[in-house]
């Protein structure tokens, strides 16, 4: 089962990468603000159904894929 996890820096957390990219976009003439850079993890999960897969990926996020202190995450399962 295909799963996608999007990990983002939490609101209020300093994101120097996002700031640098935003400055660069502005330099290119784009009118942007609040650029934030996260991470995408694509997975193929061995699970019997969507519910089990989601629970499994949830545990992966809590244990390894995200650090709850500074990051939030979203899980998408493509049944």
């Amino acid at each position, binding site marked *: 089962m295909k799963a996608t996890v999007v990990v983002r820096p939490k609101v209020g*957390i300093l994101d*120097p990468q996002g700031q640098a990219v935003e400055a660069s976009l502005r330099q290119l003439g784009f009118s942007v603000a609040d650029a934030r850079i996260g991470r995408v993890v694509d997975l193929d999960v061995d699970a019997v159904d969507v519910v089990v897969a989601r629970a499994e990926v949830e545990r992966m996020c809590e244990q*390894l894929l995200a650090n709850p202190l*500074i990051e939030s995450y979203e899980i998408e399962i493509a049944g």
Partner: protein
Amino acid sequence: MTDRRPKVAVVVFPGSNDVDDAAWALGALGGDAELVWHGSERLPEDTRAVVLPGGFSYGDYLRCGAIARFSPVMSAVVEFAAAGGPVLGICNGFQILCEAGLLPGMLRPNASLSFVCRDVALRVEQASAPFTSRCQRGQRLVIPVKHGEGCWFAPPGLVEELERNNQIVLRYEGGSPNGSVGDVAGVGNERGNVMGLMPHPEHAVDPLLGSGDGALILASLLDAARDRATALV
């Protein structure tokens, strides 16, 4: 003679690169450093202190220290710390200890986004065993840093709490080189037997190389390791 030259386990992760300097410095200061591969499930039997050295364990993939914390040896390190054994994390070792939940907060990319590699001045906020017993409170130490992700972060309120518990051990003087909250350079756990710091004491043990101030921290650790050896006999 274990008491005289206490055994210090220096853990080697794939990507650790300050192992030899740490082992050499500990040896020169009177310790018996033994390198322990991260895949080992236990520490040497007579281990009196543990050092997690600097480097780029697992290529800093995902987050610095995030993968190393699950190395087999880390269970033994957690157990050693729980029994009151002194554990020092330097740079990447600090990152691993934060990811492992043994230390508060975590380390983020430097606010400047630049890798910093230079001597920095530190202020000793706590002069106590096991890491700073050879220092005076308020003492200024010069020790080099070299990192891209040393910006220590703690959520609002936590720094004040750590301050009250005397867990802020070292601060950068004259501004933080990485944007760390409260200019924090080194922080300990509640019990005081685990500490992490971004500066590298193992690179500053001889005035010939610019500063010998790092020796104060490593020698403090060895004092504690010796005391522990005596206590356990």
